[in-house]
């Protein structure tokens, strides 16, 4: 198939960017979106041009490294898949595809379509963990966890930290990402001792990173490749509210 690509090119974080147009000819319909870009890049290199930089690694939808906003939709907007799992058969012959990076001030552009998502790591550093030293763990079956609680925690823990929620959000908010981790760890018994500290720390780290706020539009959930539901955000709000009141009153 033949396509017209309009790709965001930006030399580095501080350089201005622009859309450049490329013709992608004879692309196999069975190729993945990233393989289509591979083909375009091979031709760019062969003709002496600078290939398009984009992040990718596992190419099976689990590492969270690939990104791309395709025609305004992170991961193509299909929901439930990452860009690396998107295949060209989803597109039409002759279509024009606009490819932009995940846009947020908290995700500065590294080059072209690659962005720096270390703000997510800083949020996890704010409290997205259970403090257990290696070796100090009690017997695993010592604490039963009801199956539905474990299943719910697992569903939230499925987040791959790709940042599509931020990219899709009209306000570049990271609430779904934070909510997923808070829901995971605050649901299980092991996470209870730190639950207030966790949510306060993570929300503060999120705010400090310069993400926007949630206006309950749920664009995030619509593009999430792991289909984390927006209700997780309600839980985050609840846990944060409770923790903040406790902190204010009890110190």
């Amino acid at each position, binding site marked *: 198939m033949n396509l017209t690509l309009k790709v965001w090119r930006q030399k580095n974080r501080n350089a201005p960017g622009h859309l450049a147009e490329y013709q992608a000819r004879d692309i196999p319909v069975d190729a993945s979106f990233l393989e289509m870009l591979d083909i375009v890049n091979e031709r760019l290199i062969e003709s002496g041009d600078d290939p398009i930089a984009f992040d990718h690694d596992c190419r099976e939808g689990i590492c969270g490294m690939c990104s791309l906003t395709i025609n305004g939709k992170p991961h193509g907007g299909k929901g439930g898949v990452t860009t690396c799992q998107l295949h060209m058969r989803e597109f039409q012959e002759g279509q024009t595809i606009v490819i932009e990076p995940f846009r947020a*001030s908290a995700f500065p552009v590294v080059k072209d379509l690659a962005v720096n998502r270390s703000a997510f790591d800083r949020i996890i550093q704010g409290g997205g963990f259970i403090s257990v030293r290696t070796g100090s763990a009690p017997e695993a079956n010592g604490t039963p966890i009801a199956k539905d609680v474990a299943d719910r925690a697992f569903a939230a823990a499925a987040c791959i930290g790709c940042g599509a929620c931020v990219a899709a959000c009209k306000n570049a908010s990271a609430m779904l990402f934070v909510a997923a981790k808070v829901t995971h760890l605050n649901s299980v018994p092991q996470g209870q001792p730190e639950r207030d500290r966790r949510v306060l720390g993570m929300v503060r780290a999120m705010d400090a990173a310069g993400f926007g*706020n*949630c206006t309950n539009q749920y664009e995030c959930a619509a593009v999430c490749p792991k289909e984390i539901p927006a209700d997780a955000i*309600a839980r985050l*709000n609840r846990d944060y509210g409770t923790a903040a009141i406790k902190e*204010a009153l009890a110190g």
Partner: protein
Amino acid sequence: MKALYLAVIRFYASSIGKKMIVALSALGLLAFLLGHLAGNLLIFSGPDALNAYAAKLHGLGVFLWVPRLGLLGLVGVHIMATLHLAAQNRAARPQEYVADATLRATRSSRMMVLSGLTILAFIIYHLLHFTVGNLHGFHDDNGVYRLADGSMNVYKMMVVAFGVWFNSLFYLVALTLLGSHLSHGVSSLFQTLGFTTPRTRPLYTWVGRLFAVAICGGFASIPVAVLAGFLK
């Protein structure tokens, strides 16, 4: 005491804190809307019922300023926090998408600032119109809009005011935007205050819509009834 004060500041400083303040102030404003609507609907029970209600409110004298200032405070907090949030949101994405797409966000959710600010303009107009303003000569001392005991003939004021078609039209437009604001705002409130669960979220969406239709339909029924000649 200082620690508590600092904790409040800290709460406001956080994104979720501000959102909760928006939601909580909205709760107060919603309660007012309900009360205001119930009072206004007395118009359908005839002039005596409505005027008696108005007289009772005015009879509160200086104490009427307690809810008035409270309301003003709620509106102020609601707007201040929202504008703070909106500014942060704009800063969070300095470079807009060239190709922008919307997948799930409702139109009303995308118009919240616009509808909110329009409602603010409407409130100012509304206050000028009925409470302080003298557009229709309500506050002239010739006694046309006063009852025998000297209190205001609110029923007559409303019938006269809504008898002017462009006046009513402006009210209806503003009410439509209020409905839009409420339909997203009310369901959002449950989410922001943390009551939403996977099962209840669709319910809250409908609660928001129903609330919006009920409030706006209720208010709109008055100018419509006046224009239709049902209320004279």
